[in-house]
């Protein structure tokens, strides 16, 4: 099977005034064409850094190593010029905060048309026409008028739609959506997810959806990948993650959600403590201090990502002896 994106051994470290921050450690994963991969994890678990590393958009303090082959080329070894041809053309990306992600001084139309203009051989007029078309596609009403408006004249949801329009204007094969709805209200979140879904269907997009909201991916993702402290801890088909997780962290995460299906007013299950420091990660399992299943062994031995079923990997020393966690 060939993958659209195949990441092997990705490490990202940041040089900071306090020392090296190990933001992403030995992350390997792959995305097949047409599928929706969700990356979930708590804040600081390295979701965004992974995405930005793939796009090579991290600043100069980041040290990246690993391999990322996308459509058969290694993203990390190509020149900056070649990378520019991929960004916005082959891979589109949308960000968390639609309020700040659009340049306030250019019209929305200009910003969408620009991405068309630089990647395609077309006139300004054609680019603008394309922009209007894309705005229509993502459900911005009255796009002919709104194409000339500035971002501040758009609501948050509309801005995120504009971002999507921009990201897919060149019909990329991969869309990386980094928490596209976190800043939005539920009703608008529903709208935006709807847009992504329909766009995905209409142009056959592969989507890598980054989020911390497990609820959001329940109805959306094909495959889910859980990150913790810069590591991939579990990856599997969606339902397996929800119903047959083999990883204590995933389990704890699922349990801590006050669900509408749960009993209100009861004590929630929590994950005690805080994620570990990424500056000097302790030996052993990184989740061990917070894990209810931890043993002495977990403190000393760093677990590997192991296959625990079909297309199901989990990083836990006790994966096999704990079985499916409920």
């Amino acid at each position, binding site marked *: 099977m060939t993958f659209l994106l195949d990441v092997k051994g990705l490490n990202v470290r940041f040089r*900071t*005034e306090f020392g090296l921050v190990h933001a992403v450690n030995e992350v390997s994963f792959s995305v097949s064409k047409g599928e929706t991969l969700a990356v979930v994890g708590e804040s600081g678990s390295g979701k965004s850094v992974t995405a930005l590393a793939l796009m090579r958009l991290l600043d100069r303090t980041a040290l990246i190593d690993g391999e990322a082959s996308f459509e058969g080329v290694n993203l990390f070894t190509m020149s900056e010029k070649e990378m520019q041809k991929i960004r916005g053309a082959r891979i589109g990306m949308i960000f968390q905060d639609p309020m700040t992600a659009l340049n306030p001084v250019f019209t929305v139309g200009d910003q969408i048309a620009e991405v068309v203009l630089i990647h395609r051989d077309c006139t300004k007029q054609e680019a603008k026409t394309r922009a209007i078309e894309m705005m229509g596609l993502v459900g911005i009403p009255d796009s002919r008028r709104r194409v000339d408006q500035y971002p501040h004249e758009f609501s948050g949801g509309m801005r995120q739609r504009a971002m999507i329009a921009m990201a897919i204007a060149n019909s990329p094969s991969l869309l990386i959506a980094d928490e596209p709805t976190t800043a939005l209200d539920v009703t608008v979140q529903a709208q935006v997810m709807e847009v992504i879904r329909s766009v995905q269907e209409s142009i056959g997009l592969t989507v890598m959806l980054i989020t911390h909201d497990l609820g959001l991916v329940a109805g959306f993702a094909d495959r889910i990948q859980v990150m913790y402290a810069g590591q991939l801890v579990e990856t599997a088909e969606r339902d397996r993650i929800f119903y047959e997780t083999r990883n204590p962290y995933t389990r704890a995460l699922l349990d801590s959600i006050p669900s509408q299906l749960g009993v209100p007013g009861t004590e929630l299950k929590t994950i005690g403590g805080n994620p*570990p*420091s990424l500056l000097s990660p302790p030996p052993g399992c990184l989740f061990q201090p917070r894990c209810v299943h931890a043993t002495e062994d977990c403190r000393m031995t760093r677990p590997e990502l192991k296959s625990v079923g079909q297309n199901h990997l989990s990083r836990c020393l006790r994966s096999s002896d704990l079985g499916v966690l409920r």
Partner: protein
Amino acid sequence: MTDLVDVNSREGLGAESLSFGRLALRRFVRHRPAIVSLFLLILMVLAFFFAGRLSNFAFDAVDVTKRLENPSREHPFGTDEIGRDLFVRTMLGGQYSVRVALQVSLLATAIGTILGAIAGYFGRWVDTAISQMINLILIVPALIVLAVFAQRFGGSPVGLALVLSGLLWTRIARVVRGVVMQYKEQEFVLAAKAVGAKPGRIVARHILPNVVGSVLVEITLLLGTAIVLESTLSFLGLGVQPPIPTLGNLIQQSKGAIDDAPLRVLLPGFFVVFFVLFINFLGDGLRDALDPRSKRQ
């Protein structure tokens, strides 16, 4: 309860507790240009205040038989037109310049902080009144203000400091006003209000300490500006009157000699330029240290 408290696992921090100030200090210490500048500044100021005492000459001891001498062992910086020792005069000049600059920054900071904080915190007509006052000072050309007031009061170092602060407080006031306006909407200020704290307490405990950073940076700029302005005023004949030396009037007095006795101009000039240069580096370091977003490697 099951909550597990583990403070020591927080990112990047050991058991040692660091206040915001200490953290900033740590960042500052890593700013090499700023630290070097601070060190040199201290050396310079020490020299200004003590080196003059090593000399056998008084700053105003005239000896017309020793006019315009070149640097020698006896007179390390040479002598001036009426035979006064330039080393002592330069050191004392530095002392007066630094004093003027310090007084200016102290006074301007006090006025600017108080008025800026009042304007920013109370808003409405108080703000309008103070802002208009600031605008008033800003639209009148600085030189008029300086010329008018320096003529009358600028002859003594203290008078000059008063005049300069009267002009320069606006900058601080604007900065403070901006920061206060930004902070007074902050939730921690609302929190203080919510527990019934009075405005005085809120401003003094919650707002002003947060203004310190920006003001500190402004003060360094102010110090530099004051020293440069002092010398510019001397150029126009409005500065401190003789025989009291300041770096400014020392340069002014010898600027004509730049062609044939460049050292005479360059020595006091050196002190002005490097003092301001170091002050600026210091300010830069402070700004970086106090900026939470700073990303220095």
